Structures are given as C-alpha cells and as structure tokens.
C-alpha cells in the first residue's frame, strides 16, 4: 500500500459510512454507468405517456409486421422545411405465400416533430392533462414505426416503453414485499436462534429446494381465470415475492448472527435494552447497506421471472403490456423469422435493464462494507 492511500484511509475514519460507501462505489465505473441507465429506464417508465408516440393498444390494421423505419435528416423541398423525416411504405402482397413485403417509399415523406399534439389525451404523472408527445409524426395518421410493428400493426417502440411500467414496477414492488418477509424472518432466526431459527431455516430450505420456475408456473396457473388484469398483476407480484424472499432471509440471518456478538450489541443488551429495540436500533441499521445491495440484485431476478412467466402465457395477459407479454408474440418462430424485431426489441429492453441492475447491485455489494478489508 502506498503512502497516498494510507493517508486517505486515515482520513476515512472521520467520514460517515454513507460518504465512504459512495466513494467506494464510484470506483466501480461500470456500476456508476449502470446507475444512470437504471435511473433512465425508471424515468422512461414514469414518462411513458410522453415518450411513446402512440398509446399502448393503438393499432393500424394497414401495417402488420412493418419493418423499422429509419429517421433521416433532410429537406424535401416542398415548403415543409429542413428537419427529421421518415419514409412511408410500399406494400406488396404475395397471393401465394400470403406474405406482405415492405419497401421504403422514396416519394412519401412524413415530418417528425417534437412535442407535437397527438390527439390522444393522457394525464402526465396523473396530474397534468395534455396530448403532447415527445416526438411523433406531424400527421397523426402517418405510419410511424421506428422499431417496427407487430401482427396487429401496433408500434413496438411505444409498447416496449409502456412495458417498462409494468416490468420495472413488478421488480420493485415484488422485492419490497420479499424484503419485508425476508428481513422479518431472517432477523428473527438470527437473533433468537434455537427452535425459532430451526423452524425458519426449514421453511426457507423447502422454498429453496423446489425449482422456482415450475412452482411459479403452478401457482400462477392456479389463479382464478375470471380475475381482472389489475388483480392478476398484483397476484403475480405477490407470488413472485412469496418465493423470492429466501435468499434475502438467509443473507440477513447470517449477518445478524455475526452482528449479535459484536461489542456494541452486547453492550446494548447489558444496558437493558429490549430485544426488539436491540434489533431495530442496533442491528438492522448496520445491515442497511448489505440489504440495499441484495435488493438491487433481487430486482433483475424478479423482472426475469415475470418475463419468463408471461412469455409462457401463465403470467400477465394482454391487454396488460409487459416485456414478457410482448415476447409472447415471438413464441412462434415463424413470426420471428418474418419480423425479427418482435424478438429483438423487447429482449434488448429486458437485457439492458437487468444487466444494468446486476452491475449496479454488484457495485453496491462491493461498496457495502466500507470499513472491511483492503481496498481491492
């Protein structure tokens, strides 16, 4: 260790743990980039109504399986001026194979404008009533499929943007529920040990030894068929969290077990603090950073679980739009071959979000213990 690092470490003794964690976290470049990506994805989910050019269910039956359009910067010279334009399509229909072939129409240009009035009213963040879209064609009826369209002529880009709302929120809500179960059981087991620990350990073991996906599938299939989409959404979230708490609970238990023999915890006990107070005031606060790291790693797992369930048709159902629901359409390999963007665009959304969350969680885990060990 060089002298420079040593003085930095000496000074570290006077900093709060939050500052130290942040300082250590910043060293993990990939995690910092991921943090911004995650924030970006959640912002997209929050402002989906503005960002998506079309409402989620809006369809245009004239354009099934339309390929992605490229946006060009040009001046068509008809008085509309210099700006962003997309080409229209020329369709050819093969009577034999019943396939539609799209080519770009060089003569048909649609101007794309920013903050354009779309005619589709919505409430921004549930407050402000407006119909402005971040970017959309000036002519509301023009075909506009920057990432292609699906079998019903719905805009994939808009649907993926709306899908972020459900896919990303299911991860957050599900993990919050898991966290409540996991922390409670883990802290109980770690603190009281003995028979309580034994019972909780066995329950955890049962849940860990049943393969999760088949169990999720079975429980999801057992949900009543006549439930509305919103009820199903909450039921699936609860199911995911009912099974997802095990690793969190084990983590908390292990940490509590080591912490409870720490001097300051023993001191609090000798001081006559009640058990509840010792856990709440002395043990849980020093767990916070580890818990945040585990939670961040649990969110992508839950997003992937929802995607897999919905893909198999056992999770969320249309008209709800999640990334898994969108991927249902690529279940049939024939339609993927006709329209690869059905698979590529939603998959890219899933992979980017889960990858960023995984890197973020990894960085947080490394930074969670600013006092422990050498700087690696």
């Amino acid at each position, binding site marked *: 260790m060089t002298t420079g690092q040593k003085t930095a470490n000496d000074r570290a003794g006077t900093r709060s743990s939050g500052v130290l964690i942040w300082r250590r976290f910043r060293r993990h470049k990939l995690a910092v980039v991921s943090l911004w990506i995650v924030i970006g994805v959640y912002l997209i989910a929050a402002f989906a109504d503005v960002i998506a050019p079309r409402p989620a269910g809006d369809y245009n039956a004239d354009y099934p399986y339309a390929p992605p359009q490229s946006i060009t910067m040009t001046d068509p010279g008809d008085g509309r001026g210099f700006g962003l334009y997309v080409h229209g399509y020329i369709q050819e229909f093969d009577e034999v194979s019943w396939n539609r072939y799209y080519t770009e129409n060089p003569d048909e240009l649609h101007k794309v404008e920013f903050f354009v009035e779309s005619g589709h009213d919505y409430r921004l963040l549930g407050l402000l009533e407006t119909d402005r879209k971040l970017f959309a064609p000036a002519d509301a009826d023009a075909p506009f499929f920057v990432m292609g369209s699906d079998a019903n002529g719905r805009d994939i880009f808009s649907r993926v943007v709306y899908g972020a709302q459900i896919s990303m929120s299911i991860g957050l809500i599900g993990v919050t529920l898991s966290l409540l179960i996991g922390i409670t059981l883990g802290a109980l087991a770690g603190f009281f040990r003995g028979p309580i620990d034994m019972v909780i350990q*066995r329950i955890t073991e049962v849940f860990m030894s049943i393969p999760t996906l088949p169990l999720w599938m079975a429980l999801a*299939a057992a949900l009543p068929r006549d439930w509305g989409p919103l009820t199903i959404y909450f039921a699936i979230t609860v199911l995911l969290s009912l099974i997802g708490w095990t690793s969190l609970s084990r983590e908390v238990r292990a940490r509590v077990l080591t912490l409870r023999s720490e001097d300051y915890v023993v001191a609090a006990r000798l001081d006559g603090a009640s058990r509840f107070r010792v856990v709440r005031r002395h043990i849980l606060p020093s767990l916070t950073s580890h818990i945040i790291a585990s939670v961040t790693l649990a969110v992508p797992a839950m997003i992937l679980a929802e995607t897999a369930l919905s893909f*198999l048709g*056992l999770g969320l159902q249309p008209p709800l739009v999640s990334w898994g629901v969108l991927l249902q359409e*690529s279940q049939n390999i024939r339609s993927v071959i006709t329209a690869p963007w059905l698979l590529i665009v939603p998959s890219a959304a899933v992979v980017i979000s889960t990858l960023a969350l995984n890197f973020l969680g990894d960085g947080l885990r490394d930074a969670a213990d600013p006092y422990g060990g050498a700087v690696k």
Partner: protein
Amino acid sequence: MLTYMIRRMGWSLLTIWLISLVCFFIIQAPPGDFVSVLMANMEAEGRRLNAQQVEVLRERYALDQPWYAQYWAWVSGILTQGDFGYSFRYNRPAVEVIAEHLPFTLLLAGGALLLTWVIAFAIGIYTAVKRYSSGDYFFTFLGFIGLSVPNFVLALVFMYIAFRYFGMSVGGLFSPDFVEADWSLARVGDLTKNLIVPALIIATAGTAGLIRITRANLSDELTQPYVVAARARGQRENVLLMRYPVRAAMNPFISTVGYAIPSVISGEVIVSSVLSLPTTGPVLLGALRNQDMYLAGSFLLILGVLTVIGTVISDLVLAWADPRVRRQHSGAAQ
C-alpha cells in the same frame, strides 16, 4: 460423519414432506375437484362416467372427506402403489407420462449442471489468477450477460439462427433419421449433438454466480502464507495452484452446486418448452394450461424431491471433502 449423515437425511425427509404439502395444495387449488373436472371433460368428448365409476373414483381420492384425508389418500397411493393420480389429458396414469419424460430431463439437467461446473471452474480459476486483467473483465462481463439474458430468448435466437442461416428447423432431441431408430452408438451420438446447445443455454444462467464465488474464494487463498511457502520451495506455479489453493477454494464450490440444481431445473423447463424437447418442461406447461393437476402436481413433487436428493448428495460430498464441515455440524452432539 455417521451422525451428520443421519441428521442431514432426517431434515431432508422433513423437507420432502413439506414439499408434498405444497404440491397437494397446488393440486387442490383450481376450482372443482378431480372427478367433477374429469366428468366435465368426458362429457365434452361425448362420453359419460356411470354412477358406479364416479363412486369408485370419489372413494379412491377420498373426495368426500376433509383435506387431510384427501392428502393421505394421495400420498399413501404414491408410497404404496406408485399411483400418482390420473392424467385426463393423456388418459393415462400420471406416473406413466412422467416416466416417459423424466430420463431426458435428468440427462439435460445433468449435462447443463456439468457444463455450468466445468465453465465456472475454468473461468473462476483463470479470473482469480489473472485478476483485473482484460481477460478477467471480459469473462466477468460475459458471465453477467449470461445472467441477464433470459434463457428462452437465447433459445429463440438459436432457433432463428439455425433456421435462417442453416435452414434447419430445431426441435426435439433426435434428428429425423434417429427418432424411431433403436439405440445404437450413432443414436447416442446424435442425442449428444442435439443436447449440447440446450444444455449450454441452460448453463449460461448459473455460471456467473459460480464464477464470482470461485474467483472470490480463490483470490483469498492465493495470498495465504502456505502459497508463498510453496512458491519459495521452488514448486512450479501450475502444480502449486492445483495442489493447494484450488483444493481449498473448492469447498464453497461444492456446496453451491446443491443450490444450482433448482435453477438448472427451472432453466430446463422453459428452454425445453421453447425448443419443444420431449422432457418434463413442455408436459408440465401443457398440464398447467389444461389444469391437468395430478400430472402437474406429481411432476412438481418429483422435481422437488430430486432437487432435495441432489442437495443432500452435494452436502454429503462437502462433508466428506472438508472435515471442518463435519465437525461444525456434529459439534453440538459432542
């Protein structure tokens, strides 16, 4: 060692009992009991059960009695006669359907587990020895990608590439020539060829975690004094690495393999459903979609029990490999 083994097995029996309760709950979950669903299904096909048959079936599954009696009727049927209930989708006893598909599941899951292990072991050692090299970053990144790409997306991409660029339609475990053929060396070769890609796809999800664990453990061992001592004795670096620190870092590796089994089974279910392999995955999915609950519940039970057995074996191997584990667990008894 013996006390540890007995205790470990006792606990796993308890776990299996709890799993069977969960499975029973799942069988009971859809509205309507087994016989009324069966009657409705048969009526849809224009057949009828006579009153006597209904009576016999209701008796067999103890449908007029409280749930614990029904549970007992189900479990005792499994234990005494191997009767897992009846699949009305296949019109056969559930156990026959399971027996047909389970070997392929075990083969595929076993292959995937082996691949996970080999890949994670090799890359784990490499990244620990060459920490912070560009190779380390590359493999760590690759591992994270494997963790973040859903298995079924990989399977779909694989199908797309095979169809688009090689004109092959993927699906099944045998090439057309071998589907009906008798077992021969060539057929085994064909099966292996068709198993590799699905196994690799399933393995991608589990490797990242194992690589991280191996890397962390081995890095801790590499700075230990005994490694320095061996190096000072003039032992060759490769021999030294394999002889001491890798062995010491293996322990957590063996124990995590136990928990890798459920994830491999989960991966198997979805990848097989996409690639339509004749394993338990698609059958379980079909059973759940059609509320063929005895078949679904039995699959779940068997997969759960197999996982528990796998975990027990990995724990016993760990206890055999590491005296510290044995002592820690029998410490209370001494």
